[in-house]
């Protein structure tokens, strides 16, 4: 796809369509739900942002569909980030995928809910290569394992670090000296 020339043509229309853009993701998601009801557990529309809660096993399929479908064209994975809701919550963990379209300029958030006993999600590195580092970061800081990831190592903390730093039960301060093993 010649995205360069395509986008240059699209840019003057941006200001005219800005009012529609806010509508578009929710309409698209409604269409997606009619087509693949099993892909969507829940739709949340809040603060002008649309979130779909996706069953864990379907995440890669949903992402592939949203990326390639002519209506959605979510070709840009802006961000992946984990969330720990707290040790007493069930499901405890979330993984959020922030999608963006470089041609239609709309955004969408996909959310996968995970319980602490089974922290596995299929990787989306096969859909976008940029997911590689985002998933490594989420693994490093939350301990979420992305199945099928080509290089799932810690990224910010040392490789022999114990625990996952952004979990709510990980202390903010500590006095244990760090030593290389």
């Amino acid at each position, binding site marked *: 796809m010649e995205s*360069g020339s395509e986008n240059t043509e*699209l840019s003057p229309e941006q200001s005219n369509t800005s009012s529609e853009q806010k509508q578009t993701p929710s309409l698209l998601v409604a269409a997606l739900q009619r087509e693949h009801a099993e892909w969507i557990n829940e739709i949340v529309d809040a603060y002008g*942002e649309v979130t779909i809660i996706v069953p864990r096993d379907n995440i890669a399929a949903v992402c592939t569909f949203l990326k390639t479908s002519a209506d959605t064209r979510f070709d840009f994975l802006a961000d992946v980030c984990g969330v720990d809701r707290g040790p007493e919550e069930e499901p405890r963990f979330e993984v959020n995928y922030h999608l963006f379209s*470089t041609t239609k300029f709309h*955004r969408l958030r996909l959310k996968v809910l995970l319980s602490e006993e089974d922290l596995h999600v299929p990787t989306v590195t096969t859909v976008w290569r*940029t997911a590689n580092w985002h998933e490594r970061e989420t693994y490093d800081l939350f301990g979420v394992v992305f199945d099928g990831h080509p290089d799932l190592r810690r990224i*910010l903390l040392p490789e022999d670090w114990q625990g996952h730093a952004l979990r709510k039960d990980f202390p903010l301060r500590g006095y244990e000296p760090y030593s290389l093993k």
Partner: protein
Amino acid sequence: MSTATNIPAQFEIVDQPLDTQMTISMGPQHPSTHGVLRLELVLDGEMVVKTTPDIGYLHTGMEKLFEYKKYQQGIVITDRMDYLNPLGNNLAYVMAAEKLLGLEIPERAQTIRVLTCELQRIASHLVWLGTHALDIGAMTVFFYCFREREKIMNLIEAASGGRMTPSYFRIGGLMMDLPSGFERRVQQFLNDFPTSVDEFHKLLTGNRIFQKRTQNIGRISAEDAIDWGLSGPCLRGSGVNLDIRRANPYSSYEAYDFDVPTEADGDVWARYLVRMREMKESHKIVVQALSRLKPGPVKADAPKVVLPDREAMKTHMDALIHHFLIVAEGFDVPAGEVYHPIEASKGELGVYMRSDGGPKPSRVHFRGPSFVNLSALPHMAEGQMVADIVAVIGSLDIVLGEIDR
């Protein structure tokens, strides 16, 4: 002969056939890695076969720290992420919180935000230009760039009191209004700046050595750039016309008239040209922002979130109570989650903020453009000469403070 036999076997010089590969470590103290980036390079002769970036040397757990600080205390942490573009970080953070709170920001505050952010973008690009040219071997440019940057730092200091860490924006507006005479000083800077950009062009753009070092180096196609999540000048250098200020306008950017420069080639040279032209566009925006400055309030009308004026605090009982409560207990933010992207000087800076309803966020995540742009380095560096890696890193304009957080 006798001395040679005394050398231990591991130090003996052996002839290496040309087809062997060698792994070397570049950094973390290498000056051209712009901080503490370490690259593990697999070389075949002088050609790079594989690059593995190793980051985390500056990791200070900022995202963890946000969860233990009140919303207004988090602003100062954001200054320390991308320390060349602190106002951009401030803006992304406060706008995410404002989205959760549903605050309406007065027009003057929005205009001042645009004005200072664009000045900051020029300052950030000047540091990029100076260090990028220095990495390649042109030392003079560095001094010219820092001379101009100093003028912007003085302006930011006049407005906020801080040079590197301004923390100028507050949730609901600004820390305070601009000082008297600020407009005149900005005007003075604006009058001089186009001549300086022409000077940079004279020093570099027509320079044959600089061209040879940057053209056809570190190429990335438009499709690959999108797939790797590149944003900002790096993406526009591959011919993709995408600017968040246009795509998802924020802080009244839709009212400004500016071009989005793009270059089709996708190499170091193209990214250089995009940033050079962006400085002129930012200059254009600052001129417009200056003419749009109208007297008015710079803080939203939200007494439970925004600190009252000193005068009101000393004369009104309710203002005093609000001041005490905001400082001592903070303010509650409605439960929910938002992702707010802005166009920072390096690309899409997104803040994911999540509230459980209390005075402290339950999760703040920064999508740093440097982090994502650096992740594409192995793709761009493959098949390049080892000396060109330096040029490619420079063209990505990374700041390790934002990558490691």
